[in-house]
């Protein structure tokens, strides 16, 4: 067995092993360390002799490392505690509890005491089974940065005394929202990279989809989980058409819709149906917007009135300047650029999206459609200066150049 084989087993087992070990030891940080030690050992010993049961080997080894760590700790602190700790770590995994434990692991990794960066890193590491190197590549940061985030995150969890359990009923919805937002952040990084020279990173988006599927399987009665999954599936369905052969972005209106992934659209629509049982939440509404695009044969044949209505609803349940801006784009399609420009100008007047390249991008488009070319050009050039993604920037500059 080679490195890739070890990594493959680890991706499948990571969440369950870390969850079970956290349950045994009551110590998330210790469990994660022990699990990582087991993977490191596997990377050395499996190429020489593959175990008959790799998953069982990993669990047993991780458990031994956890026991070693507890012994070291109790030797320093209280030898009597060793006696108390031993029976607990000898317990077998309870298959009926493992789902709840994996869910608890997701809640711990996305705990509000953690910085947003630590939540993302910990979730990908312990639930997703990614290495620090893979996480670093996903977020275009150096490996030591990811390692530091994970180490700090584990210390924060320990210092705050975060219990390993499902959140109490009163906090459940809010904490679930926290988990969803971590998955959404990961997805967004893959679907519109905030920096770097590539617009899309499907491998990063895939990790989010996988996490969303896991969460949907563990929390099947939560409509917003299905809403988020639907949003991810429907957005990812358009990936094959979103960049040209040279990697440059292709706008929705220019996309070859035959390249859209129709199986993903079907999965997205099925998830959206599950999200719609009690009225749509913010993710469900965004998914419904994505579904309206996914079901349309062309930009012209898109139900823009419905999309405007969905953005209005989204603006009510989750008000944000980005939603307003998107509503403006939809309004431009439904009832013309002049109406839309008024919405954008209002956003600028209230200075609710300062420094974003999106506002001048949209404003430039609208001005161009209104025939106000010099103003449009100035806006698009401003947008290019503010945009951190090189691919998007060159599209903006190209468009600005056509207006001179």
């Amino acid at each position, binding site marked *: 067995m080679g490195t890739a084989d070890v990594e*493959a087993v680890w991706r499948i087992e990571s969440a369950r092993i870390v969850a079970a070990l956290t349950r045994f030891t009551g110590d998330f940080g210790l469990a994660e360390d022990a699990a990582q030690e087991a993977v490191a050992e596997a990377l050395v010993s499996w190429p020489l002799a593959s175990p008959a049961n790799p998953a069982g080997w990993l669990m047993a080894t991780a458990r031994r490392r956890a026991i070693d760590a507890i012994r070291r700790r109790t030797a320093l602190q209280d030898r009597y505690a060793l006696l108390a700790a031993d029976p607990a770590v000898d317990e077998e995994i309870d298959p009926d509890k493992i789902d709840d434990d994996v869910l608890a692991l997701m809640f711990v990794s996305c705990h509000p005491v953690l910085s947003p960066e630590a939540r993302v890193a910990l979730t990908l590491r312990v639930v997703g089974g990614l290495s620090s190197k893979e996480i670093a590549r996903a977020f275009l940061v150096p490996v030591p940065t990811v390692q530091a985030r994970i180490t700090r995150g584990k210390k924060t969890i320990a210092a705050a005394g975060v219990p390993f359990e499902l959140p109490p009923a009163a906090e459940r919805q809010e904490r679930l929202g926290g988990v969803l937002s971590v998955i959404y952040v990961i997805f967004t990084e893959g679907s519109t990279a905030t920096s770097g020279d590539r617009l*899309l990173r*499907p491998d990063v988006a895939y990790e989010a989809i*996988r996490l969303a599927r896991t969460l949907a*399987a563990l929390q099947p009665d939560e409509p917003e989980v299905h809403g988020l999954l639907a949003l991810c599936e429907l957005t990812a369905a358009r990936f094959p058409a979103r960049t*040209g*052969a040279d990697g440059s972005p292709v706008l929705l209106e220019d996309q070859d819709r035959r390249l859209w992934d129709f199986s993903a659209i079907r999965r997205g629509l099925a998830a959206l149906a599950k999200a719609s049982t009690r009225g749509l939440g913010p993710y469900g509404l965004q998914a419904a917007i994505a579904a309206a695009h996914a079901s349309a044969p062309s930009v012209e044949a898109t139900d823009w009135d419905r999309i405007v209505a969905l953005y209005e609803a989204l603006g009510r349940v989750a008000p944000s300047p980005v939603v307003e801006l998107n509503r403006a784009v939809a309004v431009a399609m439904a009832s013309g650029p002049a109406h839309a420009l008024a919405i954008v100008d209002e956003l600028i007047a209230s200075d609710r999206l300062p420094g974003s390249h999106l506002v001048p991008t949209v404003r430039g488009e609208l001005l161009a459609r209104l025939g106000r070319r010099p103003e449009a050009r100035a806006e698009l050039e401003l947008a290019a200066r503010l945009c951190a993604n090189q691919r998007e920037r060159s599209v903006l500059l190209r468009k600005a150049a056509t207006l001179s």
Partner: protein
Amino acid sequence: MPKYLLIMRGTDESNAAMMANIDEMMATTRQFIEEMIKAGVLLAAEGLDDPGQGVVVDFSGETPVVTDGPYGETKELFGGYFLLDVASKQEAVEWAKRVPAAPGSKIEVRRVAGSDEVPQGNERIVKERAGRESTGQI
């Protein structure tokens, strides 16, 4: 991300072994499917009916000819599949190893080609594929 089809290929012997233990087999398969759903990797899974009930539509001649099974010399028959969305071929293989398959049967692991990969050799498609590869899309 890469999709893989795990194709179950049973023999008469493995099918007989499976039928002898059908209740247990169904229960472990259900459990296995649950596990893949919770891991976020399962897209579809189906099992096929008795091969004796199938027919073959043969395109050797000018018009398609329909004949009853069995299917020529083939010893291992396609009996069902799992469609997985995984991060790597190794992961697909690891899942394949865990399928509760009857002794004597085989599982073929095949990557699903994207719509942009067929037909092979077309110059435009080759170029496009190279572009997508360079941007990490495939």
